[in-house]
């Protein structure tokens, strides 16, 4: 049944949507964890980091895909890194010029986008092997999936750690902030719990057997 649906969807749409759920970089593939854990103490920072990474990913994927036949395979990694670094520097300069506050908040994590394995990974796995329109769709989906995940994680941590979401006060004065949510251990805790939740939802969507299927000793968990 599921197979039938997949084959009916146009291939470019599938390239785009897989990054949102099935192959969501943060919650399904678990790549690009460094910025995911580091900057999500506030929703706004998570969103900004997601957008900066998306721009770099989309631009690099398009360029790599266009020149995929010209780049010798022996030096493909240094070539990709050069291309990625160029776009990251553009993002960094742009943020410093137009959004100095965000640039200040994200600090060293902007230049570190260069080594985000999500970006290099997409070049190696997808952009270097597929035509430009598919590479662009893939990068767009992956970037959007990454951005949504970081913003969601940022919202959870900001809500529990400061009682606010996007700096708007949500929880009243009676709420005592859980400081741990803003620290690195809090990042791991919230990421782990959200991962677990997403796994449960995913299993439900795949099996339609309910969120907590009964354990069958013969077959194991389905």
């Amino acid at each position, binding site marked *: 049944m599921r197979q039938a649906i997949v084959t009916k969807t146009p291939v470019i749409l599938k390239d785009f949507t897989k990054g949102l759920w099935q192959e969501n970089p943060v919650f399904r593939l678990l790549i690009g964890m460094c910025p995911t854990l580091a900057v999500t103490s506030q929703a706004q*920072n998570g969103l900004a980091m997601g957008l900066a990474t998306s721009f770099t990913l989309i631009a690099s994927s398009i360029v790599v895909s266009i020149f995929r036949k010209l780049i010798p395979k022996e030096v493909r990694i240094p070539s990709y890194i*050069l291309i990625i*670094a160029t776009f990251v*520097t553009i993002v960094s*300069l742009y943020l410093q010029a137009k959004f100095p506050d965000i640039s200040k908040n994200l*600090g060293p994590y902007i230049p570190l986008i260069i080594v985000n394995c999500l970006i290099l990974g997409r070049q190696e796995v997808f952009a270097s092997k597929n035509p430009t329109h598919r590479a662009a769709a893939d990068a767009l989906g992956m970037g959007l999936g990454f951005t949504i995940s970081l913003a969601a994680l940022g919202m959870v*941590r*900001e809500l529990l750690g400061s009682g606010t979401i996007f700096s708007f006060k949500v929880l009243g004065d009676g709420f005592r902030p859980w400081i741990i949510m803003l*620290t690195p251990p809090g990042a791991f805790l919230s990421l782990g719990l959200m991962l677990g939740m997403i796994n449960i939802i995913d299993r439900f969507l795949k099996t339609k057997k309910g969120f907590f299927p009964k354990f069958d000793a013969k077959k194991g968990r389905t």
Partner: protein
Amino acid sequence: MRKGLKITLTLTLIAVLSGAILAEVYKVTIEDIKVNQKKEIEKAIFSVLPGTKEYKKEARGTRELFKCFDDKAELRGIAFVAEGIGYQDIIKVVVGVDSGLSKITGIRVIAHNETPGLGAKISEGWFEEQFKGLSAAIKLDLVKGKPDKENQIQAITGATISSQALVDIINKEVKDIKKYEAGNCD
């Protein structure tokens, strides 16, 4: 041999193109970046010494200070950039003191790399507000919980090191500036 040439050419070409593009982007953005940095210090000076109409930059050793004047051209006070090591990087803070160097009129943190969500709160209004009107004659003290004595600053919950660093930086630089001004008058 031909393979080697192709590899060299590809990498060289990408590097040259990348350099050219970045040089252009840098040229376009650098003006805004410089303006932002200057604006940041300027905004900080006006906020730490309210009522300032004009300021004059003066060299202080290798560094600088800003003499601030109100609309009647009278000296309102001195603003200066203080800096020192925080929890993980240098903290830069603009400090304002009145013309008699007896009171701190305000502070504004302009650059830091403290932990986001924790130490980074040193640049939040409520924390900076605490320094307003404190005496510059005696040292500032950091306390956990509500201050109950003169010249005490309440530390940020969970970020005592960053709070302490800022207090230390201000204590040191206020002392320095007093020494410098005293030397200047003789």
